[in-house]
């Protein structure tokens, strides 16, 4: 079998001062991750991950990053990620959520994770309007899920990744 097998690492960026949008480019994330691997695993780590590494997806609104790496060397990437402390001047850290074999499996995880986070948010709500907004969002997710199960329709969250 000549196919290259990959692992997709799904991370969340946790900023020091949480703002709605922080403009980060995929290039910057790539360089910061390369630097971290070079620091933790040296020339060997940098050389071995350089071929297959790619920042596949970056969403600055939800602060989600999806990094692809070759299957044999995913542990080098996974272990270097916690050592990243900033991108440019913004202090942040990477919170690794999931490692999947395909982008689709990471999407499925992200949907479940989003629903779990909504439940956490509901507990943290301070005002009645916030609570109503979160409840509306939860109902919308579960309604969509029910609809997709009933009519076998493709989940709309998939569209975010299709580029």
């Amino acid at each position: 079998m000549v196919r290259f097998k990959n692992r997709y690492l799904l991370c969340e960026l946790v900023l020091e001062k949480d703002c709605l949008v922080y403009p980060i480019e995929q290039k910057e994330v790539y360089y910061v991750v390369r630097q971290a691997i070079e620091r933790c695993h040296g020339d060997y780590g940098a050389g071995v991950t350089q071929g297959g590494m790619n920042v596949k997806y970056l969403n600055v609104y939800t602060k989600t990053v999806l990094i692809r790496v070759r299957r044999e060397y995913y542990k080098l990437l996974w272990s270097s990620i916690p050592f990243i402390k900033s991108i440019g001047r913004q202090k942040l850290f990477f919170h690794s959520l999931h490692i999947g074999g395909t982008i689709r499996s990471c999407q499925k995880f992200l949907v479940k994770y989003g629903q779990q986070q909504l439940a956490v948010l509901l507990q943290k709500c301070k005002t009645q309007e916030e609570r109503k907004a979160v409840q509306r969002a939860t109902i919308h997710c579960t309604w969509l899920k029910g609809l997709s199960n009933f009519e076998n329709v493709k989940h709309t969250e998939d569209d975010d990744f299709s580029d």
Partner: protein
Amino acid sequence: MKRIVSKGPADYFYLKVSLEFTEDDIEVDVLLFKAIIVKALLTMYGETGTAMTVDVLKYNEDRKEAILRVHHSGFSKLWSALTLFGYYSQKQCAFRVHQVSSCLMALAFNSRQHMVHAN
């Protein structure tokens, strides 16, 4: 393709290495020697490389020769890092690995050079 790694009965590997510079007038004491080994591991394998414990069991300052001990898991990493180490503070240098064995007694005699090291 399955990769089979055989640990074997050896816990540690012993290497007899010497550090060679192009200029002969450089003095290296045992602490500097250990620091150079750690630097070689740092450039090649990063911070996880320096976490590997390498012991300098014997050091001969005149010949800049040492007997190193390393755990079997770090053996190939240490040897490859020493091989690819070329410069120390802008001076060209090289590590020559004379003997390698899983048993320390085997380093007492070197049949290539017909020298029995009594120290």
